[in-house]
């Protein structure tokens, strides 16, 4: 399974939705994921890929990790996974 599909599965599980209902354009707000749900999703992603996601809930805009929508999250995770294997 691709990084993208694995991230979407994790986000879908958090949102209690089918993965097919999660699009790259969906925002966390669209999916009903609140701030606690976000940190839980990031934890699940870190566990799944064994990576560290540079995300601080106090200043999400300042973090070097874009959570604007599912697409930016997937891109961020793909980059982190690639760096890990570099």
């Amino acid at each position, binding site marked *: 399974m691709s990084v993208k599909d694995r991230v979407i599965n994790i986000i879908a599980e958090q949102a209690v939705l089918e993965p097919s209902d999660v699009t790259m354009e969906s925002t966390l707000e669209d999916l009903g994921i609140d701030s*606690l749900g976000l940190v839980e999703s990031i*934890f699940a992603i870190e566990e799944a890929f064994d990576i560290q996601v540079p995300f601080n809930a106090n200043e999400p805009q300042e973090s070097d990790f874009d959570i604007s929508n599912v697409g930016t999250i997937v891109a961020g995770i793909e980059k982190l996974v690639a760096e890990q294997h570099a």
Partner: protein
Amino acid sequence: MKRVVITGAGTINALGHSVAETMEAMREGRCGIGELEMRDVDRLSIRIGGQVKGFEAEGEFNRQQIALYDRFTQFTLHAAKEALAQSGLEFHGELAAKAGVVLGTAGGGVSTWDENYRTVYEEGKNRVHPFVVPKLMNNAAASHVSMTYNLKGPSFTVSTACASSNHAMAQAFQMVRHGMSTAMVTGGSESMLCFGGVKAWEGLRVMSKDACRPFSANRNGMVQGEGAGIFVFEEMEHAKARGAEILAEVVGFAMTSDAADIVMPSKQGAARAITGAMADARINPAEVGYINAHGTGTAANDKTECAAVADAFGQHADNLMISSTKSMHGHLIGGTGAVELLACIMALRDGVIAPTIGYEEPDPECALDVVPNEAREARVEVALSNAFAFGGLNAVLALRRV
């Protein structure tokens, strides 16, 4: 001052998952203490406890709730559901704005600490789940009760070791009595039956390896329990006006501190709390028919408690009944006073005195009527509930039959 009554009760403990099951077990003198079932039990030297069996969080809470609820919070919400349903109260508007929840717990989310210490120390992982803090905090249970039932008034958690629940219920009582709130949810819970929780108690060398036998000459220590007891305390006229079933009246309380020793109990501190509760309730000592003892089954507590009762009551100490239900459900530590309040309610409302089971040999230093081994029928007008904590913090509640 307002009069305060109990209009709802709920529990989960080693004797049952409800008040009815628990009281039935108390009437039958059934023992809920057995072999502990937990990870690494073979590394414990103490392997018995009053464990809650057959409780499946999955059937009661959704996945997101389970991720946030430590076992002590799960017990609390289970018991609160029963208590609130019995009371029939729903919290809206002004009632909700002033109603709160005051709970006792000594350890809070002990198993959450335990599991996550394992993760970082034993397994060497460098990451823990983001909900560790909101799960383990001592006020988690009180906060979730407030959120579940829309309680927007004063809510907090009291932590005074083995007296936590009695101190908490005393606070709730005060708030209703003085008109701060029309109704308060109160009680307490504990869930320390995990490897680290039992190991800590082992260290103190006060635990029994075979049974909790309060007041018996051959007693050899305490046995841990777990669970919750939750009550609705309500202003009496409010309860009557809506036709609520009244279980008992809370008439007084007192708290004292020994200011002496971090673990050894004091006769004077305990006696002052008992006498103080009777004075606060304006009751004559001769009216007291039953005392739910702290009765831990340790050498020190039981003889000190009996001496305190003898001092506080004089000759009447020989006429009243005093029993320790810890012999059946174990010592729920911060939750213990809440579950034990059920024995007081049963004595007052049903006229049934819960026994001290496991009683084998009279102890001249505990020469009171401890209702050995079998429940007894008796009409009781006033009952007291004792709690004497490590650290010398004592809290005694007085209840009256309605």
